[in-house]
C-alpha cells in the first residue's frame, strides 16, 4: 500500500503528514528463544557446577547479564510498540477525515 499517494489523494494534494511508521526494528522471536537457551545454559551450569565456585560465579554473572539483556529487549520492544500505538491514536485524532484505518494498513504494509 503506497501511503503517501493515498494521503495525497484523500487530502486533494494538499498534503497530510505521513502516518507514524510501525516499529520495524522489533525484536525477533528467535532472539527470545536464544535468550531462553542462554538462560538455561547459565542455570544448568549453576546447578551442575555448584561446588566449583569459579565456574558457578561465572555462570551467575552470565545469568545476570543475559537476564538484563532479555529484560531490556522485551522492555524496548513493548515500549516501541506502545509508543507507536499512542502516536497512531494521535494521528487518527488529528486526521479524522481519513476513511481507511492506517493502523491496519501500516501493518499490512509491514
Amino acid at each position, binding site marked *: 500500500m503506497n501511503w503517501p499517494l493515498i494521503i495525497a489523494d484523500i487530502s486533494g494534494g494538499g498534503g497530510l503528514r505521513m502516518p507514524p511508521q510501525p516499529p520495524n526494528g522489533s525484536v525477533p522471536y*528467535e532472539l527470545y*528463544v536464544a535468550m531462553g*537457551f542462554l538462560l538455561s545454559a547459565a542455570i544448568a551450569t549453576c546447578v551442575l557446577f555448584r561446588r566449583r565456585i569459579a565456574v558457578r560465579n561465572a555462570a551467575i554473572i552470565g545469568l545476570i547479564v543475559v537476564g538484563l539483556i532479555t529484560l531490556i529487549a522485551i522492555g524496548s520492544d513493548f515500549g516501541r510498540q506502545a509508543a507507536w500505538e499512542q502516536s497512531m491514536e494521535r494521528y487518527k485524532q488529528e486526521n479524522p477525515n481519513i476513511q481507511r484505518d492506517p493502523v491496519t494498513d501500516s501493518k499490512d504494509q509491514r
Partner: protein
Amino acid sequence: MSVPQASLTGTRVEELAIDATSYRTVHVLLAVGFSLLLLLVAALPIEVSIAAVFLFAGPHNWIEARLLLDRMPSRWGKYRLYYTVSLLGSVSLAATAVVIALSSQGYLVGLTVPYFIMSCWHTTLIAWIVGLVLLRSQEQPARDWKSAIPIGLLITAGAWLWPAQFSLALVYLHPLAAWAFAYPEVVRKHPKWLGAYWQSVCAVAISVLLLLIIPVENQMSDGTVASQIVQHAGASLIPAIGGRALVAIHAYLEILHYIIWLVAMPALTLRAPLWTLKSAPLTRTSWGRKTVPAVLLTGVFAVVVLWIAFSLNYSVTRELYFTLAITHVLAEIPFLIRRVT
C-alpha cells in the same frame, strides 16, 4: 630415540633405520602433498571441487560405511540404549533434513520450510548429540561429562540466532570429523605417527589461513554449477570472504576428508582386505551373514549409479548428493563419540 647401540642386534638397528627413513619420507610426502593441494585449490577451486566430488564422493561413502561396519557390535547388550538412540536419531534427523533441504531447493512443490523449522531441527540435532554424550558417559569407566548440557544449550542459542550460519558451520566441520576419526587410530596403533598427525593438523590450519589472506582474483566463471558451488560454500552468508576463497577452502577440506577416508583410515584400521568382511562383527550373526554383503553390494551399485548420474547431469546430482549426504554425516556422530572418548 636414545637407545644404546651396543644393546641392539644388527637386525633391530636396521629396523630402526628403516623406521626413521620411512618417518622422514612420510614427513616430506605430507609437506609436498599439502603444498601441491594448496596450490591446486587456490588456482582452480571450482574445477578441483567438481573433479573431487565426481571422483571420490561415492567411494568415500562406501569405504566409510564399510569401516563403520567394523565398529558395529553384533550384539548390542549393555549398549542397547546407546545404539537404539543413535539409530532412531540418525534416521529421523536424516529424513527430516532431506525433506527440509528438498523443500528449500524447490523440489517439493507447495511445501516451504521457514527458518523456524530449520532451527527446531538444529535444536533436535544438538539435543541428540548431548544425549549420546551423556549415555556414553554412564558406561564404564564412568566419565564426568555433565558439562555437555550447558555447552549444548549455549550452542543451541547460537543456532537460533544464526540458523543459516549454523548449517554452514556443519558443512565446514564435517570434513574435519575425519581427522577426529583418525586420531584414536593413530594413538592406539601407530603412536610414533602422532607427531606427523599434529603437524598435518597444523598444516591444514595454516593452509586455510593462507587461502583466507592470499589476495586472489574473485572473478568466478559463470554457469549453474559454478554458482551452485559458490552458494554451497556459503558465499552469500559470508560476503566478507570472497566466493573463490570459500570454494577453495571447502574444496581443500573436502579433498583431505576424502584422502583420510580412502587412504589413511583403511591403512590405519584394516587388518584384512576390504572385501573379505571377516572383521565386521555383524557378519557373524545369522541375519548379518547375508544382509551385510547385500548392503555393501548395493553400495557399490550406488557408487556406479552416482558416477553415471554425475556424467549425465552434474548440477542436479551434486545438489541431490549433498542433500542426501546428511545421512552419512549423522551416522558418523555416534561412532565418533564412542571412538574419540
